């Protein structure tokens, strides 16, 4: 099974672990991530203006490349997933955007939103299946209390993202269970960490991530998992009070599959 893979700028730099652990885990579970040639940064946030085309073109190029390869387009980063999936929706349903983007790109064959955009976690849930994941686990994470941090970008807007129930998601909790650990539900798991405001106004970002962490700490998590490098940064670097580790979900997966050692995590399983 093969997917056209869009890694995104951060997974080539500060978040290499999210990328490398995702690739080796995929191979172990029977699917392959084929990196799209010459992909360009998605821009990190979906352009909410209806009259902007240029900021959507990188996503359209990636989508057209996946179409040409005959694959679904897969991402690991929540932000890439959000941007590319929303742009794909525009290409499918907004005639004006589709027309202008194609006019600009002059592809051999116009792109009209035909590719499926999937997140790695959805492949685990919908294609591989939690039972297969469970059976592949070599180092069960029993005894660990793990909080899933969804943030915003995987879930919203749910009408487009179609990832999970936006107010009561279960996919990451099911993932944690499949690896043998105990998922911990806390109230702010789908609220914002402060996002890019960390550059514009650090104090606000600190308040936002502080609230999320407090809510998780109150429920007694050992650590959190995320699919987003910016969430990981905000929750670890901007945390003012008590620290809670935040790991990429692929690191946890690679560890449980016996592919990668995870420092600082000991199970009593």
């Amino acid at each position, binding site marked *: 099974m093969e997917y056209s893979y869009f890694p995104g700028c*951060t997974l080539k730099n500060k978040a290499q672990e999210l990328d490398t652990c995702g690739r080796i885990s995929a191979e172990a579970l029977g699917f392959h991530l084929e990196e799209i040639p010459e992909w360009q940064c998605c*821009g*990190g*946030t979906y352009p909410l203006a209806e009259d902007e085309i240029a*900021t959507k073109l990188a996503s359209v190029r990636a989508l057209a490349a996946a179409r040409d390869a005959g694959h679904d387009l897969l991402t690991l980063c929540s932000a890439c997933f959000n941007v590319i999936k929303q742009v794909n929706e525009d290409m499918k349903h907004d005639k004006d955007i589709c027309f202008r983007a194609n006019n600009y790109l002059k592809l051999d064959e116009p792109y009209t939103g035909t590719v499926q955009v999937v997140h790695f976690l959805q492949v685990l849930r919908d294609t591989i299946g939690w039972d297969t994941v469970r059976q592949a686990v070599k180092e069960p994470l029993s005894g660990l209390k793990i909080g899933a941090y969804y943030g915003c970008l995987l879930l919203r807007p749910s009408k487009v993202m179609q990832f999970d129930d936006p107010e009561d998601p279960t996919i990451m909790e099911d993932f944690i269970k499949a690896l043998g650990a105990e998922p911990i539900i806390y109230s702010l798991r789908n*609220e914002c960490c402060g996002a890019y405001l960390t550059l514009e106004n650090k104090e*606000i970002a600190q*308040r936002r991530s502080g609230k999320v962490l407090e809510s998780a700490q109150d429920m007694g998590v050992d650590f959190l998992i995320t699919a987003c490098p*910016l969430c990981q*940064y905000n929750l670890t670097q901007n945390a003012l009070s008590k620290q809670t580790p935040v790991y990429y979900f692929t690191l946890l997966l690679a560890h449980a599959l016996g592919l990668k050692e995870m420092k600082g995590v000991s199970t009593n399983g």
Partner: protein
Amino acid sequence: MDDPKKMKAQIEDISHVDVRKCMRCGKCSATCPNYDDMEYHPHQFVCMVEKGEIRKLMDSNSIYTCLSCFACIERCPRQVEPAKLIEATRLMVERERGANHLKPDMIVQKLDDQLPQQALASAFRKYTK
């Protein structure tokens, strides 16, 4: 001189938001994680655009504090999508020559070892044109 009617049309053109759909329930503001740090809140963007009070919004810091978290977009019962108005208002400012909020020479002092590229890409997309 500002022409409020023209400015309102421009905002509607950029955002495709129909402010008349709003039923003033306040859910968007109630759910906004940055409520406390905004001078004007999401529901006020909707009312003030409707009234043509766009210059006030353009002059306010609220256009830079929206997190694009999609909470107000998700939870508005009338699909008004207030964050699109905030984006459109900010673009009205940034599309004016020289009005970028984030300039490349401001970046160096903001960098740290851990900062993900994604933060820079996103901030540039939001704060410059």
